[in-house]
């Protein structure tokens, strides 16, 4: 069986090396030497900004294009916008990290296939002094502590995957600062990088994905205060848009991309990505696991 998701991804480095090939054989996979251009070579990939900002797609997309002859148009937008593009058939394939909303999309029939690709994790960062004393607490208690201390907290407030995650924590804590709008609750409505900058400037706490934090670390006066909890997993799925709803979509291409993303060779690349620069991987490949394995 597959190993249970471990709490701290830093200790989980070896998953990929033993990963078996995905259950379905990659039908379209072809050696780079005999690339024949597909009938409809253009694919629109709608994804969240984090995958682009981290630089991961800059590595993977050229690989995919070279292997298959497809040309990928990567559109990095907010999670909500990416899902909407799928819903309206304006993208062929999605790479997103908002599991609950993804399920809604699938249930409504707009998505056809949904495959687990990878995860990284969320962390709570904040000023080194940690005025609300959240270090060492569980996620729910940490949010309660922040609320009670009424110290600055930055919320993305943009319905992104990260924001949805944060909302779920407030819900678990049975608190609702978004409605109460206290002074210390700062909603930026911006992307992760910009929100981190706001948090840094305001000396605030913020829930962030590890990858973006690491990429921006140099410019920030924020320390990791809480990490390594099961509840902090940030899971990415690839979703093909349903051609029965939108005949114009390039389903073959979308499928090829999904297969590529879950292909063991690709997964190995994901596991290595960022190690050189940050000393730790930014994403952990999960193609060999199921949602249940990750506690979704």
């Amino acid at each position, binding site marked *: 069986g597959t190993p249970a998701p471990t709490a701290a991804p830093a200790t989980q480095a070896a998953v990929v090396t033993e990963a078996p090939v995905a259950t379905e054989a990659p039908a379209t996979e072809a050696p780079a030497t005999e690339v024949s251009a597909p009938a409809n070579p253009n694919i629109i990939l709608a994804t969240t900004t984090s995958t682009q900002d981290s630089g991961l797609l800059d590595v993977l997309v050229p690989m995919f294009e070279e292997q298959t002859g497809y040309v990928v148009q990567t559109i990095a937008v907010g999670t909500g*916008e990416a899902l909407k593009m799928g*819903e309206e058939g304006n993208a062929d394939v999605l790479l997103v990290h908002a599991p609950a909303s993804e399920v809604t999309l699938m249930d409504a029939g707009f998505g056809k296939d949904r495959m687990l690709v990878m995860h990284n994790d969320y962390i709570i960062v904040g000023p080194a002094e940690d005025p609300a004393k959240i270090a060492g607490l569980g996620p729910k208690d940490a949010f309660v502590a922040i609320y009670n201390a009424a110290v600055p907290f930055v919320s993305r407030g943009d*319905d992104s995957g990260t924001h949805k995650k944060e909302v779920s924590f407030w819900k678990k804590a049975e608190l609702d600062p978004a409605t109460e709008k206290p002074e210390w609750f700062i909603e*930026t*409505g*911006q992307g992760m990088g910009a929100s981190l900058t706001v948090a840094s*400037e305001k000396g605030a706490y913020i829930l962030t994905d590890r990858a973006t934090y690491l990429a921006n670390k140099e410019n920030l006066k924020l320390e990791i205060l809480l990490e390594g909890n099961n509840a902090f997993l940030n899971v990415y799925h690839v979703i093909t848009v349903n051609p029965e709803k939108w005949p114009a979509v390039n389903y073959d291409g979308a499928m090829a991309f999904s297969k590529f993303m879950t292909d063991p060779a690709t997964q190995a690349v994901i596991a290595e990505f960022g190690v050189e620069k940050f000393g730790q991987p930014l994403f952990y490949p999960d193609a060999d696991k199921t949602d249940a394995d990750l506690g979704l």
Partner: protein
Amino acid sequence: MSDIFEITLLSLQVSTIATLISLLIGLPFGTWLALGKFRGRSFLLSIVNTGMALPPVVVGLVVAMTLWRSGPLGGLRLIYTPVAIIIAQTVISAPVVMGLTAAALAALDPRLQQQLLGLGASRVQMIWMLWREARLPLLAALMAGFGSVISEVGASMMVGGNIRGQTRVLTTAIVLETSKGEFEKALALSALLLVLTYLINLALTLIQQRGAGK
């Protein structure tokens, strides 16, 4: 969107103040560029014209780097305040007002200056009359300046932070709704923004025509 009224008001306030400051800077300086006789004038003019092409994101980045705590003016604690947006927007629209003012005044008959001085106008009075004479293109300059700030988003986002209840303005709200995939809301806000801008333009045009009609 219960805070829509608040957001709209802030947009108008911030952009109006920025436009007024730009006018205060751009009108005299543009006049000087148009009327002054000095070396390096066309060099300065092309610098100002380049300023008309200042990308809001660049202005946002530079102003933010200045106002961040790590920046030279970090002590003022202006980052993520409406004042910061006003500063950035002023940087964006001042060159627009300046460049168009210079062009408008340079197009006037040069003998007009002579004649006004010959009628006993002081320098200030002369310039005042020149502005009056060029009021149509100057109004267009003002509108272009206002248009450049009420519509920009890159700078407001970076230096304002789009913080709900504090620095969220119409354009940043539009971007937010768009990134949420809430296109209808984004379009509704856009419509609101355009209607407001239209009303302001209309008011300015009417004031100007009344002034001309007298």
